[in-house]
C-alpha cells in the first residue's frame, strides 16, 4: 500500500523558495568577490580590428578588462595527466568566449570588464570600444533553404515502404509548409556563475541543468582533471533547456577568477541571454500526406530544415516522434540544417517534438477537412498499436483512452465542423484538437541512499531541479521505499560531489534518478533482511526479498503481522547507517518494446473577427505518461506545458534584423510570453498506465509532453473559428485580418 506515491505532496523546497532561503547560483556569498560584466559585439560577422580598453580600464573600480588579446590560452597538459574519459568530450565544440578576433554572431562576447561592483563593471563595459572588419551576415533560414544539408551525408534518411509512389497514387493528398520562428526560453532567473580557485582546485556555483556537464566542459576548457572541479547548483529558477549544454559564461568566469586571483561573479543581462545560450531554432517544414478515402494514411513525407550556427551542426529532431505516431506504411522523413551567422540553437522544452507535431497535426487537420472526416476520427482510423518502423508493440499506450476522455470532457461531439459555424456573440468560436507525444526515456543514473540509525535518511544525486519538483519526488520515492515519514528524508542534488546523474532534460529525471533511489532502497532492505536473518528469531529466514517491505521504521513480512524494528536492529549491529550507492540502468526488457508517452489536447479559441485577437478560452489536456508519482506537481507540469503551448502558438518569436544579423527584441517588453490575462480555463487529466517495462517505478516523461500538441490544437481551432489556415507561428492578430 503506497503511503506517498500517487498522493499529493507539496514541494519540499517550496517554503525555502518563497521565503528567499533557497540560494540560486549567483546568490552565494563569497568573500572578496569581483564582478564581471560582458561586452558584446555590435556586428554579426567579421573580425575585431581593434579593441580599446584604455578608458574602461581607467574607470572607477575597474580591476581588469579581458579580451581575446589578453585571454590566457591554457596549454594542453601532458597526456597522462588526464584519464581517457576526461578527454572524451572532444565533441564539445560549444562556443567559448574571447578565443579569437573572429565574430560568429551578433552580440557575441568580446570583452569582460572586472570591477569591484556590478555597477562599476556595467558602466565601464560601455567604455570598451571595438572596431571591426565587417562582413555581411547570413541569418535567414528561409532565404537559404537550398543550402540545407544532412548532418551525416553518409547516412541518408531511410524510407519506410515506398512513400513517393504511395503519395503519387493516393486519392487524397495534403501538402503544406509550416514555419516556426526562433524562440527563446526566457526563464525567470538569468544565467550566472560564481567561480574561485584554491590552488589548482576550481569551485563554480552555476545555474545549470547538469553539474557534471559543466564540470566536463570546464575540464576540457582548462585541461585539468574533473576531480579538481566542483560545480554546485542547488536551485535553478527555470531553464527549459537553456542550461543543458555548457554555455560560455562559466569558463569565462573561471578564467577571470584565475587571472585576477579573486572570486568572480558573472550574470547575464536579459539581453545577453538571447545569445548567451541556445534557442529553439527557426524551422521550415514541408509535410505531404496521402490517404485513402476512408482516411487511412498511405504516405507521409516530412522534410524539415532548421538553422544552426556557423561553427556547429545543430539538427532539430522534428521528425523523429511524428514519424512513429500513425499507422502509415510508407514514410520518409528528413532533417537538415543550414549554417547561419547566429549562435548555436539548443533544446527548448519539447525540442523537435513540438515543432514537428505542429506541422504533422496541422496537416492531419487539413487532411480531415479534405476528407470531410472528423479530425478525432481521423486519428483513431490511423491509430497504431505498434511502432510502425520496428513493428514492436508499445509497452503501454493509453492514447485511445486520452482521446475518448478528452473528447467527452470537452464536448467534442457538439462541434460543427464547418469553419466559422460556431459563435459566441460577435466572436468566432473554434474547437481544435491534436495529439501529444514524447519519449519514456531512462538514462543511467546514480544515487546515494543512507539510512541512519536515528530514524532519518539522507539521499543525494548530482541531478538538478529546474522546477518540475525533483526535490519533492525524490524525497517521496525514498520515503516510500525506506518506509520513513517524508519529513525525515533529506534529498540533495546539484553538486558534483554527489553520485553522477545525467542532465535534467528529456523528461527522464524521475525515471532515471528515481529508479536509482528505488533500487538503492531495495538494496538497503536486502541488507536489513540479511542482518535480521543473523538473529535466531528472524521471521524472514525463508522469505523472499520481494515478500518484505519497509514501513514505519519496521521491516515487515507481507501478509503477516511479523516485523522487526530496523533501527533497533542497526543498533544491535553497531551500525550508525546503512549506505547504498547505486546506478540504475535501463532494463534490457525495454528492447522488446516501443515506448512513449502520449496525450490528447482539445482547445477552444474565441477570435474577434474585427481585430484578429485570439483568446484560448478553454484547454483540456489528457495525458498518459505511466504512473503519476505526485499529482500536485504533475498537474503543475501539464498546466505549465499548456501555457507554453499558448505562448508558442500565439506570441513567441525572436526577431532578427537580417541586415545586421542582430536580435532586435532581446527583452521581455518586445519578446512576448503569455501573461495571466492570456490564460483562461485549463484542465489537465491523467490516464494512468501500469508499465513496469519502462522502469521499475513505471514513470514516463511528462514535463515536455504537456506542450507538444498545443500549438497545433490552437492553430486547428483558429482555422475552425475563422477559416484561415495559419501555418506560420506565432498566430498574431495581423495574420487573421
Amino acid at each position, binding site marked *: 500500500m503506497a503511503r506517498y506515491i500517487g498522493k499529493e505532496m507539496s514541494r519540499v523546497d517550496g517554503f525555502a523558495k518563497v521565503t528567499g532561503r533557497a540560494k540560486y547560483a549567483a546568490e552565494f556569498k563569497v568573500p572578496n568577490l569581483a564582478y564581471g560584466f560582458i561586452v558584446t559585439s555590435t556586428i554579426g560577422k567579421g573580425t575585431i580590428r581593434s579593441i580599446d580598453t584604455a578608458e574602461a580600464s581607467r574607470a572607477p573600480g575597474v580591476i581588469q578588462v579581458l579580451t581575446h588579446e589578453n585571454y590566457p590560452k591554457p596549454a594542453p597538459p601532458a597526456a597522462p595527466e588526464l584519464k581517457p574519459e576526461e578527454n572524451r568530450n572532444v565533441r564539445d565544440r560549444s562556443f567559448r568566449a574571447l578565443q579569437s578576433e573572429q565574430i560568429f554572431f551578433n552580440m557575441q562576447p568580446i570583452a569582460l570588464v572586472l570591477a569591484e561592483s556590478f555597477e562599476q563593471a556595467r558602466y565601464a563595459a560601455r567604455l570598451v570600444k571595438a572596431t571591426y572588419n565587417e562582413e555581411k551576415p547570413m541569418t535567414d533560414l528561409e532565404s537559404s533553404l537550398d543550402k540545407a544539408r544532412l548532418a551525416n551525408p553518409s547516412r541518408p534518411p531511410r524510407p519506410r515502404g515506398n512513400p513517393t509512389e504511395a503519395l503519387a497514387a493516393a486519392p487524397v493528398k495534403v501538402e503544406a509548409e509550416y514555419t516556426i520562428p526562433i524562440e527563446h526560453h526566457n526563464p525567470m532567473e538569468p544565467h550566472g556563475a560564481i567561480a574561485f580557485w584554491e590552488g589548482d582546485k576550481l569551485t563554480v556555483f552555476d545555474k545549470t541543468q547538469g553539474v557534471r556537464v559543466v564540470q566536463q566542459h570546464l575540464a576540457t576548457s582548462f585541461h585539468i582533471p574533473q576531480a579538481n572541479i566542483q560545480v554546485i547548483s542547488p536551485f535553478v529558477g527555470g531553464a527549459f533547456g537553456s542550461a543543458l549544454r555548457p554555455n560560455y559564461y562559466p569558463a569565462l568566469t573561471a578564467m577571470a577568477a584565475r587571472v585576477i586571483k579573486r572570486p568572480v561573479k558573472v550574470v547575464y543581462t536579459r539581453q545577453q541571454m538571447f545569445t548567451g545560450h541556445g534557442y529553439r531554432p527557426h524551422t521550415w517544414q514541408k509535410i505531404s500526406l496521402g490517404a485513402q478515402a476512408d482516411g487511412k494514411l498511405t504516405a507521409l513525407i516530412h522534410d524539415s530544415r532548421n538553422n544552426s550556427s556557423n561553427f556547429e551542426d545543430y539538427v532539430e529532431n522534428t521528425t523523429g516522434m511524428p514519424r512513429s505516431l500513425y499507422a502509415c506504411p510508407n514514410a520518409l522523413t528528413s532533417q537538415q540544417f543550414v549554417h547561419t551567422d547566429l549562435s548555436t540553437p539548443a533544446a527548448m522544452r519539447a525540442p523537435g517534438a513540438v515543432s514537428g507535431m505542429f506541422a504533422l497535426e496541422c496537416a492531419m487537420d487539413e487532411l480531415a477537412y479534405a476528407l470531410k472526416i472528423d479530425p478525432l476520427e481521423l486519428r483513431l482510423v490511423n491509430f497504431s498499436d505498434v511502432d510502425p518502423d520496428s513493428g514492436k508493440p508499445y509497452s503501454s499506450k493509453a492514447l485511445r483512452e486520452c482521446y475518448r476522455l478528452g473528447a467527452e470532457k470537452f464536448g467534442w461531439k457538439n462541434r460543427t465542423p464547418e469553419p466559422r459555424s460556431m459563435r459566441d456573440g460577435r466572436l468566432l468560436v473554434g474547437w481544435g484538437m491534436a495529439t501529444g507525444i514524447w519519449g519514456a526515456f531512462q538514462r543511467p543514473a546514480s544515487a546515494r541512499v543512507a539510512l541512519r540509525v536515528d530514524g532519518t535518511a539522507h539521499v543525494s544525486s548530482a541531478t538538478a531541479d529546474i522546477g518540475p519538483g525533483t526535490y519533492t519526488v525524490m524525497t517521496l520515492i525514498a520515503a516510500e521505499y525506506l518506509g520513513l515519514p517524508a519529513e525525515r528524508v533529506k534529498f540533495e542534488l546539484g553538486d558534483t560531489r554527489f553520485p553522477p546523474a545525467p542532465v535534467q532534460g528529456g523528461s527522464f529525471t524521475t525515471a532515471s534518478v528515481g529508479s536509482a533511489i528505488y533500487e538503492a532502497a531495495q538494496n538497503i532492505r536486502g541488507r536489513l533482511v540479511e542482518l535480521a536473518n543473523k538473529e535466531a528469531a528472524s521471521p524472514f529466514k525463508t522469505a523472499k526479498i520481494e515478500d518484505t517491505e519497509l514501513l514505519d521504521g519496521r521491516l515487515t513480512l507481507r501478509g503477516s503481522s511479523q516485523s522487526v524494528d530496523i533501527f533497533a536492529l542497526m543498533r544491535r549491529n553497531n551500525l550508525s547507517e546503512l549506505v547504498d550507492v547505486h546506478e540504475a540502468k535501463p532494463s534490457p526488457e525495454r528492447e522488446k518494446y516501443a515506448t512513449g508517452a502520449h496525450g490528447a489536447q482539445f482547445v477552444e479559441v474565441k477570435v474577434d473577427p*474585427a*481585430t484578429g485577437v485570439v483568446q484560448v478560452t478553454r484547454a483540456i489536456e489528457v495525458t498518459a505518461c505511466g504512473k503519476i508519482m505526485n499529482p500536485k506537481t504533475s498537474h503543475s507540469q501539464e498546466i505549465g506545458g499548456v501555457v507554453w503551448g499558448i505562448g508558442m502558438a500565439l506570441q513567441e518569436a525572436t526577431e532578427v*534584423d537580417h541586415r545586421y544579423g*542582430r536580435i532586435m527584441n532581446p527583452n521581455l*517588453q518586445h519578446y512576448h510570453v503569455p*501573461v495571466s490575462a*492570456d490564460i483562461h480555463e485549463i484542465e489537465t487529466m491523467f490516464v494512468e498506465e501500469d508499465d513496469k517495462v519502462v522502469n521499475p517505478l513505471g514513470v514516463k516523461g511528462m514535463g515536455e509532453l504537456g506542450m507538444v500538441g498545443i500549438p497545433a490544437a490552437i492553430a486547428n481551432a483558429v482555422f475552425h473559428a475563422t477559416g484561415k489556415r495559419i501555418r506560420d507561428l506565432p498566430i498574431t492578430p495581423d495574420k487573421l485580418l
Partner: protein
Amino acid sequence: MKSFKYSVAKEATGAVRAVSANPAAKFLAGGTNLVDLMKEYVERPSEVVDVSRLNLAQIRETSNGISIGALAKNSDTANHPLVRQNYPLLSMAILAGASAQLRNMATNGGNLMQRTRCQYFYDTAMPCNKREPGSGCGALEGLNRIHAILGYSENCVATYPGDMANALYALDAIIRVRGTNGQDRTIAVQDFHRLPGDMPQKDNNLAHGELIVAIEIPRNNFAAKSYYLKVRDRASYAFALVSVAAALETRGDAIERARVVLGSVAHKPWRSTEAERVLVGKPATVATFEAAAEAALKDAKPLEHNGYKVELGKRSIVLALQRAMSGEVA
C-alpha cells in the same frame, strides 16, 4: 548606467531652475521609463532631479472641468470617481496601459513624456536618429511591424507608444507647464507631441527644464458614449498594435460632436479631424463609422511590415465607435 548627480526637489520652480541650468539634467517622477532607458544607456543624464515628492498629485474639479496633477499616479487617476464618472475614456485608456504594478508607479506627467518603444531606439548598437541624430533610421527598412503608418519622415518611423495621451487628445486636454521663467503656461494637448520631421530627437514641444504640473480637461458631454479600444499581441502588458480613443455626443439620431484618435500609428496620438468631419451631422450607423474610418486612414503609407495597421486601424475605429454608442466599458 552612467553616474549622475541626484537631488530631491522641494518645490516645482526650484526643480525647473535646477534642470534648466544643466542641459544634461532630467526630471525623475515614477521612473518607469527613464530608469529603464538609463540602464540601456539610451538616456545618459548627468543629473537627475527627483520631482516625485512635489505637491502635484491632486485631482480636483474646477469651474471648467477637472484638473489632474502631473504627479498623480496613473492608477489613482484611472480609479478616481470624478474621472470614472465624467471622463471614463481617460480611465479606460489608462487601464489599458502597462501593468498594474507599472500604473501604480507611473505618473500622469511621466506618461506623457514616455519615449517610443522602437527596438532600434532601445539598442545603442543600432542606428537611430531619435537617440543619435544623424545616425540613420534602423526601422525604416528594418523590422517595422510596430511602426508608424502616418505622419512619419525618412528620419524616423517610431510611434508614440502610450495609451493615456490618446484619450487626452480626444478630450481636448490642456497641459499646464511650469515655464523656465517660473510662470505657468498652457499647451493644448494636440500641440504637445511632435511629428518627427527632421528633428525626431525631440518628442514634444516642451523647452528643456519645463515641468508639467497638471493636466486640465474641460467639461464635455462624451461620458455616455466613449470607448478606448486597444488591439495588442497579448491581453495585458503589451503596447498597442493599434488603439482608438472614440467619443461621441449625439442629439436625436445625429452625431453632434465626435472625436477619433488613433494610437500607435504615428509619432504622436493621431487625432483624425477628417474622420470627425465625416461623423458630425450623420446618423450613428455602421455605414457612417466605416466612412469615417476610411477618411482617417486615407493618407496612411504603410512600411514593409506594418501594412496590416491600415486595415486594423479602420476596423478598430468602427468597432470603437460602435462600442462608444452602446456605452460599453473596456
